[in-house]
């Protein structure tokens, strides 16, 4: 594409009052091939846009640099079609609104920003969407035929897409099919489960192909072009699908580990799952002799919220016990139910059912269980009653129900092992090592992905295959594979149904977006994708190892084999590559390097230091904008470069900046660790790790490692921004000017 670039400077919103526009036009563009540079007092208004549109038509301008407000706003207004390159230069939030007007430093900042924009566009090309050789499929594979799986299948079919539903048991229904009753909105009383109707609806739906007694043998390819091998009753079938919903559900926590609560020792101690089965089969009786139940006690959090068992709350067991207490009351209103609880957690509107259970006269005891014993043919429970402040004993019990929690189906019974890399310290004598929850190896098999990073979805520490449950529900760390229902987090039926619909929507979006070469969340709509110059690849495996989404497979010679439909366009591979051979059409190592080189570095005796901030455009950049909107002010010596993810920072940029005489480099990225906020899961963490190794580079340049710093900035931390920058500037002041200035 023959680039013809033009710059448009908006002088509205106070930009014109803060800057000398004529000087900006001259100094900001002098080193670049720019067709013309115009200004307008209201660029985002119809007249301003007309100026640009007219130029594109009359003069063939196809690369447009808008020097106005932040790239976070008006992106829809400054959209001139897919055949135009548009680059935004921030003169409003981060210049006019946060710096004193008509000052020399403010003017220099604006000029540098414009120069950086010009340098970026200089290298930028129009992205061409990726098109796989195979034909794209938009069918959806649903793994698991419980309530979540069936709901996902039905809703996907309703939206007009073909569905494959794979269930490992011989009939659909999952736990829903084993229940007597359920509780749904408005959570006032017990309702029918509706399992039979649902199974019938799924079986009869012409758009749903049901495989029972089947497992997924293998999934290869990527979104849009997944190839799925399904094994059923000895037969194998291969299907093509566009996206996958994993709704493999849960298993109850193993009550055999709860011997201290009498399980296995006394027949009349049962789990809530056994209780439900007993209720569904007919009458609830004493398992030991089949006699009536007069007094029952429910032990809540049996094994849950205990570090040595299940450390988390499953959020449904309270409601289940209240439901089962209601079964007993319906059977015989004279039954006395005791509920021994730590906290009653009836989430959301389920509180109404708690009220109902209280009205029924169930007796709630807050405390922790000390032991279960037998006296004659009756059980007793000893507990520490927190509210009475006493140790109590409840006697004469016919039934004790252990409310055990939910374990995701993905979580293996024992920690699996894989072959350790040759130089690994964690290897045992056999050369094997235990796998971590966040590796794709940590899970019982459900998907059998042909991914280099492991056959299953990477999980969080308790085995749930989520990527970030607050910001991006259903998203996992494998693009195009969405988790729904209890495998994602413990939940009750009504919530599982909502969840399934959400995941189904995501799966449909993914198959549609992939078919036109677009990225999915969080860079939804991005048409660029990483391209690799394989001739210079050294098979170092960093890209295949570090990609948070497992985009690369590997051949036996360790060459990376990209699957661009799996890519989320974060650029982590670009940051990882020591040979710098991975780049996007509109985002590359050279491009950002040129931006850094476009910054004018004043001579040392001018006493105007220069600091570059590489800023995550998801959280830190909007925080900076917000600080500008709030008219907070910070040092005019800082140059802000938005980047896709801190994980895309290539260490060569540090060398680029330092050798140019930049005094310091600050990286602003998302929080990492257990409560990470990185949109690409590991990006900011990788940046931090890589930075710890940057001292080497700095040493080589004979520079102080204090010149480079990583800070965690949340999107809500705008009030801390001036403080962070001032502190860093102070540190740079102490370290002194970069000796490479003027080279």
């Amino acid at each position, binding site marked *: 594409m023959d680039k013809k670039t033009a710059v448009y400077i908006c002088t509205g919103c106070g930009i014109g009052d803060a800057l000398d526009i004529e000087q900006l036009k001259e100094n900001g563009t002098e080193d670049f091939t720019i067709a013309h540079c115009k200004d307008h007092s209201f660029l985002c208004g119809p007249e301003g846009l007309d100026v640009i549109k007219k130029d594109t038509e009359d003069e063939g301008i196809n690369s447009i640099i808008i020097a106005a407000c932040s790239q976070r706003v008006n992106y829809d207004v400054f959209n001139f079609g897919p055949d135009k390159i548009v680059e935004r230069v921030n003169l409003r939030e981060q210049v006019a609104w946060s710096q004193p007007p008509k000052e020399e430093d403010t003017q220099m900042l604006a000029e540098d920003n414009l120069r950086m924009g010009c340098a970026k566009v200089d290298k930028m090309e129009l992205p061409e969407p990726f098109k796989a050789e195979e034909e794209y499929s938009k069918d959806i594979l649903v793994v698991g035929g419980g309530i979540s799986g069936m709901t996902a299948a039905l809703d996907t079919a309703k939206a007009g897409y073909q569905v494959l539903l794979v269930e490992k048991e011989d009939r659909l229904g999952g736990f829903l099919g084993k229940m007597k009753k359920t509780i749904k909105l408005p959570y006032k009383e017990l309702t029918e489960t509706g399992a039979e109707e649902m199974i019938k609806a799924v079986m009869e739906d012409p758009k749903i192909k049901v495989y029972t007694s089947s497992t997924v043998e293998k999934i290869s390819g990527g979104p849009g072009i997944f190839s799925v091998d399904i094994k059923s009753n000895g037969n194998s079938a291969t299907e093509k699908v566009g996206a996958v919903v994993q709704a493999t559900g849960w298993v109850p926590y193993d009550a055999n580990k709860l011997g201290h609560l009498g399980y296995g020792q006394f027949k009349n101690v049962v789990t809530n799952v056994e209780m439900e089965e007993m209720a569904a089969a007919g009458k609830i009786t004493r398992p030991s002799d089949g006699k009536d139940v007069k007094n029952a006690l429910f032990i809540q959090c049996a094994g849950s919220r205990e570090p040595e068992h299940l450390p988390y709350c499953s959020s449904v067991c309270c409601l289940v016990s209240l439901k089962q207490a209601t079964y007993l009351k319906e059977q015989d209103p004279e039954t006395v139910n005791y509920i021994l609880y730590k906290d009653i957690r009836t989430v959301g509107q389920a509180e109404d059912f708690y*009220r109902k259970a*209280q009205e029924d*006269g169930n007796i709630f005891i807050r405390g922790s269980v000390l032991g279960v014993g037998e006296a004659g043919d009756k059980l007793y429970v000893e507990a520490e009653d927190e509210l*009475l*402040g006493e140790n*109590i*004993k409840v*006697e004469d019990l016919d039934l004790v129900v252990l409310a055990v929690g939910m374990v995701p189906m993905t979580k293996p019974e024992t920690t699996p092992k894989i072959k350790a890399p040759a130089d690994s310290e964690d290897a045992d004598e056999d050369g094997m090592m235990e796998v971590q929850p966040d590796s794709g190896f940590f899970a019982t098999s459900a998907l059998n992905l042909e991914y280099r990073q492991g056959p299953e979805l990477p999980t969080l520490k308790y085995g749930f295959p989520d990527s970030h449950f607050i910001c991006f529900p259903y998203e996992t760390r494998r693009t195009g594979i969405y988790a729904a229902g209890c495998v994602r987090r413990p939940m009750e039926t009504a919530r599982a149904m909502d969840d399934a619909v959400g995941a189904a929507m995501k799966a449909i979006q993914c198959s549609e977006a992939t078919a036109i070469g677009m990225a999915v969340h969080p860079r939804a709509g991005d048409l660029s994708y990483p391209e690799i110059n394989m001739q210079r690849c050294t098979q170092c495996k960093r890209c295949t190892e570090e990609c948070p989404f497992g985009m690369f497979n590997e051949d036996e010679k360790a060459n990376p084999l990209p699957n661009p439909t799996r890519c989320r366009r974060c650029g982590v591979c670009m940051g990882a590559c020591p040979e710098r051979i991975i780049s996007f059409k509109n985002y590359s190592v050279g491009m950002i390097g040129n931006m850094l080189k476009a910054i004018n570095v004043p001579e040392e005796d001018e006493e105007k230091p220069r600091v570059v901030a590489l800023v995550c455009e998801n959280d830190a950049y909007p925080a900076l904008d917000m600080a500008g909107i709030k008219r907070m002010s910070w040092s005019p010596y800082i140059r802000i470069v938005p980047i896709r993810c801190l994980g895309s920072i290539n260490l060569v940029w540090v060398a680029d900046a330092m050798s140019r005489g930049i005094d310091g480099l600050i990286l602003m990225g998302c929080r990492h660790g257990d409560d990470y906020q990185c949109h690409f899961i590991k990006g900011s963490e990788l940046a931090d790790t890589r930075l710890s190794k940057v001292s080497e580079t700095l040493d080589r340049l004979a520079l102080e490692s204090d010149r480079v710093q990583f800070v965690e900035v949340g999107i809500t931390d705008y009030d801390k921004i001036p403080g962070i920058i001032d502190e860093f500037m102070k540190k740079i002041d102490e370290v002194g000017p970069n000796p490479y200035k003027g080279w």
Partner: protein
Amino acid sequence: MRKNGNYDPSFAREVFENVDFGDEIKMCMQCGVCAASCPLSLQMDHPPRQIFTLIRAGKREEVLSSQAIMLCTSCYTCKVRCPRKIPVVDVMHGLANYALKNGFVPRKDTANFGGKFWDQVYRIGRIDEKDLPRRYFFAGGFVEGIKNTLSFSDIGIKMFLHKRMKLLPERKIKGIISLRKMLDKAEKMQERGGASV
């Protein structure tokens, strides 16, 4: 030192069935807002929340002899604030009544004063600011009465100076016969199961 106790649901059932507003206790979720709101909770041996949990645990003796159920001054803060809309004040009065009926006297003073108050209202239809304290103070004997009177003498003198207390005895109200009829009827209603029925 922790005591040991056995849970016994029979007292809870007794309260649910026999005490005015007693079944409202079922809805208590032990949040403690009532106790935190009560201006007298520091004086109570068991604040309302504890009373409710003791009922569930079956501690009949402890509940019915607790002075807390008679200490309530009916300020209604608990009733207003209870997230489960339990009329805590009414439950406390119901319990006090039930305790007296069953031969428990949780607070002798309060019971004594209440009795004398009722008597006087029934007799003359109003409260005599001299006569009621006199009857109340001297209930424990002459020496006790003198002591009590002296300890309240400064209040008495001030009330006298502000013309809040007359020297002459108060007269009966005009419609005393009708008032007594009303009070008699109310008492009969109470015996039939209280106003709530």
